[in-house]
C-alpha cells in the first residue's frame, strides 16, 4: 500500500516534490517563519518573489483591486534585488521545509544572464529556476518576452546558457497561439512550462471616472480565471513533451484534479492563500482522499488522464 507521502509525491521533470501544490511567485512572504511546517503542510515547493538584478521599488498608485471572484494586481516586481536575495533571503528560505524555486524576471539579456550566473553558485539551494517571460523586452520594442515564439525562444536560450539546473518557463496568456510559444520554449531548452501568468485586465474607478491603476492594465488572478487557465494547460500539454505546471485560479480540490487530468504535473496556488493559509493542507488532504477512493497508487497516474479518450 502506498503511504500518503508517496501517493501525493510528483516529479516535474527531474524535480521531486512531496506534493503537487506549489506556492506561486509574488504571493508568499520571504520571512523564514513562513517556509516551515506546519505552515507549509501540503506544499511541495514555493516560488520566490520575482527577482531582478537591481532592487525595484515597484509601481506607484493603487496596486490591488478586487473583482468578482478575482483580484487585479499591478505590483511592478518590487524586490530588493539579487544581492539582498543571495545574502539574506535564500539562506533562510533554503533552510525551510519546502523546495525553493527562484522566480527570475526576464529583463535585458545582460541583466538576466548576471542573475542566473549568480544563482548557479547557489544551485544546491534551489530546486529550479522559474523564468518569468511575461516581462517586457526593453531592448526589443517593449513587447513581453513571452508574447511570441521567437522572443520566448530567445529568452529561454539566454537562460539556458547561464543556468544548468532545472529551468521552468512561466508563460504569459497574452500571446497569439500559446502552443507555438510553448513549443519554441521547449525547443530552446526549457525543462518545464508554467501555464500561466495572470490575465491582463483593467478596472475603471467610476468615482474618479478614470483607470484605477497608474499603468492602466493589471493582471487578473483568482477563481475567476480558472477555466481560462485550465484551457491553456490542456493546449500546452498537448503541444509539448516536457512537463507542465498549471497556474491560475486553483481554489478547490476539483481544480487541482482538473489541472492534472488536463496534463499538469503540478499546480501553483497564489491568490487562494491570501485568505486561507490552511488551503494547502486542506487541498492536499482532499486530493489524497480522491486518489485513495479511486485506487490510484500515485498522483502521477492522473497527469493527462483526461485526454485518454479524446486524443
Amino acid at each position: 500500500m502506498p503511504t500518503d507521502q508517496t501517493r501525493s509525491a510528483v516529479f516535474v521533470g527531474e524535480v521531486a516534490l512531496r506534493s503537487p501544490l506549489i506556492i506561486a511567485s509574488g504571493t508568499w512572504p520571504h520571512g523564514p517563519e513562513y517556509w516551515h511546517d506546519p505552515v507549509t503542510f501540503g506544499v511541495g515547493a514555493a516560488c520566490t518573489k520575482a527577482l531582478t538584478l537591481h532592487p525595484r521599488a515597484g509601481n506607484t498608485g493603487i496596486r490591488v483591486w478586487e473583482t468578482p471572484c478575482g483580484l487585479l494586481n499591478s505590483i511592478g516586481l518590487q524586490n530588493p534585488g539579487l544581492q539582498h536575495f543571495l545574502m539574506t533571503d535564500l539562506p533562510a528560505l533554503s533552510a525551510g521545509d519546502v523546495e525553493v524555486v527562484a522566480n527570475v524576471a526576464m529583463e535585458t539579456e545582460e541583466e538576466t544572464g548576471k542573475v542566473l550566473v549568480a544563482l548557479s553558485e547557489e544551485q544546491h539551494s534551489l530546486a529550479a529556476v522559474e523564468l518569468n517571460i511575461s516581462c517586457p523586452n526593453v531592448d526589443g520594442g517593449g513587447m513581453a518576452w513571452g508574447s511570441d515564439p521567437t522572443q520566448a525562444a530567445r529568452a529561454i536560450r539566454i537562460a539556458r546558457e547561464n543556468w544548468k539546473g532545472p529551468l521552468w518557463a512561466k508563460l504569459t496568456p497574452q500571446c497569439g497561439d500559446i502552443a507555438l510559444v510553448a513549443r519554441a520554449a521547449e525547443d530552446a531548452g526549457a525543462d518545464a512550462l508554467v501555464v500561466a501568468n495572470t490575465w491582463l485586465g483593467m478596472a475603471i474607478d467610476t468615482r474618479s471616472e478614470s483607470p484605477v491603476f497608474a499603468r492602466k492594465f493589471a493582471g487578473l488572478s483568482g477563481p475567476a480565471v480558472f477555466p481560462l487557465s485550465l484551457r491553456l494547460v490542456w493546449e500546452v500539454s498537448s503541444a509539448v513533451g516536457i512537463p507542465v505546471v498549471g497556474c491560475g485560479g486553483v481554489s478547490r480540490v476539483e481544480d487541482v484534479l482538473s489541472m492534472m487530468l488536463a496534463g499538469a504535473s503540478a499546480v501553483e496556488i497564489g491568490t487562494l492563500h491570501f485568505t486561507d493559509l490552511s488551503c494547502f493542507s486542506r487541498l492536499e488532504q482532499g486530493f489524497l482522499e480522491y486518489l485513495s477512493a479511486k485506487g490510484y497508487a500515485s498522483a502521477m497516474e492522473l497527469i493527462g488522464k483526461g485526454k485518454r479518450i479524446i486524443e
Partner: protein
Amino acid sequence: MPEPDPSRLDQDVVVSTKVMLGENLFVLTLETGEIIPRVQPGQFVLLRTAAGFDPLLGRPFAISGQEGNKIEILVAVAGRGTRLLADSALGARFSLRGPLGNGFPESPRRRVHCLAGAVGIAPFLLASQGNEKTEIHLGVPGQDWEPLINWVSEKIHGVHVYSEDGKLGNRGNPLLCIERLDPGREVVWACGPTGMLKAVSTECARRHIPAWVSLETRMACGMGGCHGCVVQTVNGPRKTCTDGPVFPSQEVLWNAD
C-alpha cells in the same frame, strides 16, 4: 513586537453581539476559537465576509477591544463586504486573519493625545483601556454620529468631541488640540481619513510634536506576501500590513502617488 506565528493567523470567528450605532455603523463582537495574543492598539484583523469567493478578500478593521477570546471591531458600511457584515445574524461564522501589523509605540513618559476621525476611534478605545495617560479627541462629520459619541463616552470619560458645525461638542476638528500641546511631554497618535492624517502630520511637524499615524490602504494578504498595500515613505515603499499600519508621520511621503 514578536513575529506572528503564521500557523495561527487564520481562524473562524462567530458573531456574538452586534450593536447598531446608526444605519451604517455598528460594533461587532467576534468570538474566536482560541485566545488570540494580546493586541496592541493599532493592530488589525482581516475579516472575510463571505464563505465563497465573492467578495474574495478580507476587509481590514482595527481592533477596538479585546477580552479573553473575544475581540471587538467598529464597522462603517463602505461597500459590499461591509454591507454583508451589517446584514449578518448573531452566530454567523466568518474567517479572520490576525492580529496583524504593528500598533502604536508605547511612550510611557509622555502623555498621548489620540486624534480620531469618526470610526478612526477604534484603536484608541483599546489604547485607553486601563491607561490614564491617554486623552481622546474625536471628530465626527455631523449629528448622525451622535450614537457613536454616546457609545464611546460610556467607555471613556472626558472624551473631547468635535464636529464641523459645532452641534456635537466643539466646533471644528481634533487638530485644534495640537496648538496647545507640549512638544517635550506630549505625543500624538492619529487614526482617520488620509486627508486628516496628512493635516495632523503637517501641524505636528510645525509644532515639533512627535506623531504616529495609522494608515489604511487597499490590502490583499495582510502578511507581507503580495506587496499590494505599500505606501511611499522616506525609507522607500513600505507595506502597510507588516511594516505598518502605524508609521511615524514624518516618514510618510504624503504627496506621493
